[in-house]
Structures are given as C-alpha cells and as structure tokens.
C-alpha cells in the first residue's frame, strides 16, 4: 500500500535501541581470521628466489642480499595493495599476513619496512 511515512515505526523504534555504529578510535572491531593486513616477513627463512618480487602487482616488495645466503625483505606499505599474493607465491613460508590495518603515516618514509636478517630469532622490523 502506498502512503507517506512508511518508515515511522522503524525510526521511532530505533530511537530507543542501541546504535548500530561504533565510536571508532575508542572501540575497534575485530578483523576476520583471513583479513589481509600488513605483511610480516621472517627474513631468516628467505632463500632469495624472488618469486614474490616477480608476482607482486605493485612492485612493493624487494629482497636485498645482505650476506652470503642471507637476505632481508623490504616492503613499501605505501605501494602494497594487500592482495597477499606474495604469501601465496613464497614456497618457504617467509611472508605471512597479519591483521594489522592502521597503517596510515604522515611521513612517507615510514612506509618502508625492513625485516632485517641478523641471524638471531628476535628479529623485529626496524623503521628508518
């Protein structure tokens, strides 16, 4: 039936209900398990095959040789499109996806993340 004000009931009903929205910076929603966020790398496992570099659609990933059979992974988060194809391409399990999504930066240089390969297990990404 056509009449004006069809939404009256829903609108009045909602006024007393909990809002569907969330005050974002104070309350964060959980990401799904398969969420493709920031790419993490375990450079110690890298063998330097560069399959990830070859498949990356946006040329965001670079493998630097830092020593004899030692490589480190460098990812430009500003270029990365978060398709996680590199994680699929890598045969050695170097690259993995994390649920981290708040990656905005004021300084473009901070987008470059290097996962150093010092040979020790306590590797943490250093930010230039």
């Amino acid at each position, binding site marked *: 039936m056509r009449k004006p004000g069809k939404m009256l009931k829903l609108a009045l009903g909602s006024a007393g209900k909990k809002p569907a929205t969330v005050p974002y910076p104070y309350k964060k929603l959980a990401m799904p398990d398969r969420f493709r966020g920031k790419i993490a790398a375990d450079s110690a496992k890298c063998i330097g095959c560069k399959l990830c570099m070859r498949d990356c659609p946006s040329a965001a990933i670079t493998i630097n040789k830092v020593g004899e059979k030692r490589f480190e992974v460098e990812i430009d988060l500003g270029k990365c499109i978060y398709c996680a194809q590199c994680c699929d391409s890598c045969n050695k399990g170097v690259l993995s996806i994390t649920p981290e999504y708040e990656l905005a930066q004021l300084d473009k*240089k901070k987008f470059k993340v290097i996962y150093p390969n010092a040979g020790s297990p306590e590797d943490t990404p250093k930010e230039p």
Partner: protein
Amino acid sequence: MAKEEEIRESLTKQFGALEGKIRIQRARRMWAEVEPSDFETVLDYLRKSQGFVILCTMTGLDKGENLGIIYHLAREDGIMLNVEVTVPKTNPVIKTVTAVFPGADHYERELVDLLGFKIEGLAPGFRYPLTDDWPEGQYPLRKDWKLDPSLKTGKIEES
C-alpha cells in the same frame, strides 16, 4: 553446436569471401575475419537476418603493420560472433557503425583517441577518454608509443 554451424553456413552462402574465415572456438563463441570493404554489409546482414542485435563492444588492436578492430556481436541466445576487420596503419580509415548501433558512439571515440583510427561519419562531440589538450598524433595504445616527457604533468615524489 548446431546453431553455430548454421550461422557459418548461411554466412558463407551469403558472402563467398568469408569461406574458411569463420572459426568456431567453442559453443557460443565464433570468430570471423572480414575485409574492410564488406564489413558494413556483413554487419547489416548479421543484425537483420541473423539476430546479432547486441554490440557488446569494439576492441582496437595494434598488429604491427596494421590496425584491427574486433566488433563483438552477440545474439539474445548468447552466441557471440567476433568480427575482425584489418586496416593498414598508414591509413586507418573505417566507416562508422553508429547508424546501425547507436551505442557504438563511445567505443568509436575510444578507438580514435587511443589507437588513432579515423572513423568516417562519426558525429562531432566530446572526445573520449583523453583530455581536451592531449596532443595530436599521440596514441597511447599503439605498441610503439612512448610517453613523451612533455606530457608528464603530475609530480611523483621521490620516496
């Protein structure tokens, strides 16, 4: 594949020059190569007698010496006939199909802008998709096209 065979038969019967130039790729996909002199009559025949009323799009090709256009025609029952026409790159002139398919307007303008076709009979209008001040003779989709440094307007910051 009976319908596709039928279409091939009636086409070759109508246009002797098409003998051996129609290829059936799989069910509902057919390809044909047509001379620029015939293509209008062929398209007209296909539309009026064979029911190819939908022009899905037109693809321009750079084939080295020549430029090609593929008219992707489709019928209501899903059979698609891709008619390829080849013209020399030195004189890429082809007649417009907007009289038969009014929807071809933007597709033809795209060919003009990106591959440098000269479409005869195309009504005047805005260009598409390049900017109004795009220089003459720059056709980005040609294989030998290189970005002219003078065209770079946006600055990409060194990171």
